């Protein structure tokens, strides 16, 4: 039975042999035992409130028996209902026990009748509901809705302070940047020589001065050190050659010292960084 009913779920109508009893043909259309009971009750053609539950139980039990003769399996729900109805039938036939706990047989029968009425009522309601005008079946909404366009108006905010800060920062940055860049990128040899000559001229004493130290004082930006140093060193060598300057370095990479030249230079006495003269 299960298999056949599953086939129903796929929408294929049940096919039954010609010789099979009409009773069994019907069972497959039922939505469970209550549905079957309701269908049987309908055959009594009376108000469900006045139905004979006893007769109904008999019909159901007959039905199940008939079904079992032909079919091997019935869903458990049907069998449970059969058992319960058999019990109810026996209670209805026997005189009520004097001190009955729980519901009487009559009450049980009424409760069953009420369940049937309720199922019938909800089915009727379902029918009326489905017969209402349904959207996309009977009535239709606008087929081509016009979207409500969302227009966003960004409202920009900015204060005068923002404006002035931005302007001042921008202008200032550009002006200062151009000054520094022009001056700092390269120290020309001529610039270096002029500076050194001024330095030497100012150096009154005969003491050695540290070239590095002076240069550092000149150059605020450390990134300019290399170019300043290179130009100054080249200029210094030239001044030494001209006898205006003496240089001294203790060892490679040690600080360079200078002082005012004392005598006219001789080409072969020019000190070189690699071979410092103490």
């Amino acid at each position, binding site marked *: *039975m*299960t298999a056949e*009913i*599953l086939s*129903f*779920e796929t*929408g294929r109508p049940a096919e039954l042999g010609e010789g099979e009893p009409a009773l069994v043909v019907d069972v*497959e*259309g*039922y*939505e*469970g*035992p*209550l*549905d079957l009971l309701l269908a049987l009750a309908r055959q009594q053609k009376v108000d469900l409130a006045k139905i004979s539950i006893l007769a109904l139980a008999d019909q159901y039990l007959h039905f199940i028996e008939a079904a079992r003769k032909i079919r091997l399996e019935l*869903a*458990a*729900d049907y069998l449970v*209902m059969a058992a319960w109805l058999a019990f109810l039938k026996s209670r209805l036939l026997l005189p009520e026990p004097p001190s009955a706990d729980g519901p009487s047989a009559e009450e049980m029968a009424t*409760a069953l009748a*009420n*369940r049937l*009425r*309720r*199922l019938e*009522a*909800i*089915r*009727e*309601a*379902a029918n*009326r*509901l*489905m017969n*209402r*005008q*349904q*959207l*996309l*079946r*009977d*009535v*239709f*909404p*606008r*087929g081509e*809705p*016009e*979207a*409500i366009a969302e227009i966003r108006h960004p409202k920009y905010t900015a204060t005068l302070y923002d404006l002035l800060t931005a302007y001042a920062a921008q202008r200032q940055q550009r002006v200062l940047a151009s000054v520094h860049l022009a001056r700092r990128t390269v120290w020309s040899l001529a610039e270096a020589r002029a500076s050194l000559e001024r330095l030497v001229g100012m150096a009154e004493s005969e003491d050695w001065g540290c070239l590095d130290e002076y240069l550092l004082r000149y150059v605020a930006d450390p990134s300019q050190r290399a170019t300043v140093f290179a130009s100054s060193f080249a200029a210094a060598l030239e001044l030494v050659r001209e006898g205006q300057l003496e240089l001294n370095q203790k060892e490679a990479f040690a600080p360079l010292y200078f002082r005012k030249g004392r005598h006219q230079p001789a080409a072969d006495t020019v000190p070189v960084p690699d071979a410092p003269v103490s």
Partner: protein
Amino acid sequence: MASLAEVRVEEVEPMDNDSQARPEELRLLEALLFASSEPLDTATLAKRMPEGVDVKAALAQLQAEYATRGVNLVRVANKWTFRTAGDLAWLMTRESTETRRLSRAAIEVLAIIAYHQPVTRAEIEEIRGVVTSKGTLDVLLETGWIKPRGRRKTPGRPLTFGTTEAFLSQFTLEQLGDLPGLEELKGTGLLDSRLPTGFSVPTPSDDPVLREDEEPLEPGDDLDLALAPAVEPDAPEGGSEGNEG
């Protein structure tokens, strides 16, 4: 033919003159409601209307104007929307986009949820006398007409189901109270499912406010698992729920 058209247009002209006296707010409402595929509530409409317009009165007037037309102004789920007139369903069949055919089981379950909400799966099964297959609930959830709305404060904390606004919209119901036959059902006392819990209240409500015996869904709730608590995926369910209506 052309001349006939002209004659007709001329006949119509007096009507145009009439409608020039038509309040501007009717034009505005008309435009808003026509344009939208979704129903709009009075508050939303009022927000878009100029100050001082009596939106409710204007809507009533508009509804009356369109009552006999091919497009009607209807109220669903307490919102307003234009829909084609119900009597023209025959004409509209081509527009119909393969409407879902619900199985008889699904229709019954939907009705039980609608009339008994909030209702648990066990209560649905009690009424139908049969196990509800997960597939049936899945199909209904997919329609968007039902939704899990909370959990019943009973052992196992089963999900409670209710209907959605889409449900009201689908069946052209202004509110849940307009369910067909609801008053009769209430009168018979059959809505009282008489469950041992004693929790059920005979009046269905889709009020999103949870009832006393409900608690909210938790964010991480695995609804899918919750839907099929301890039921075998196959045999008994399929077996008990055969045929399509």
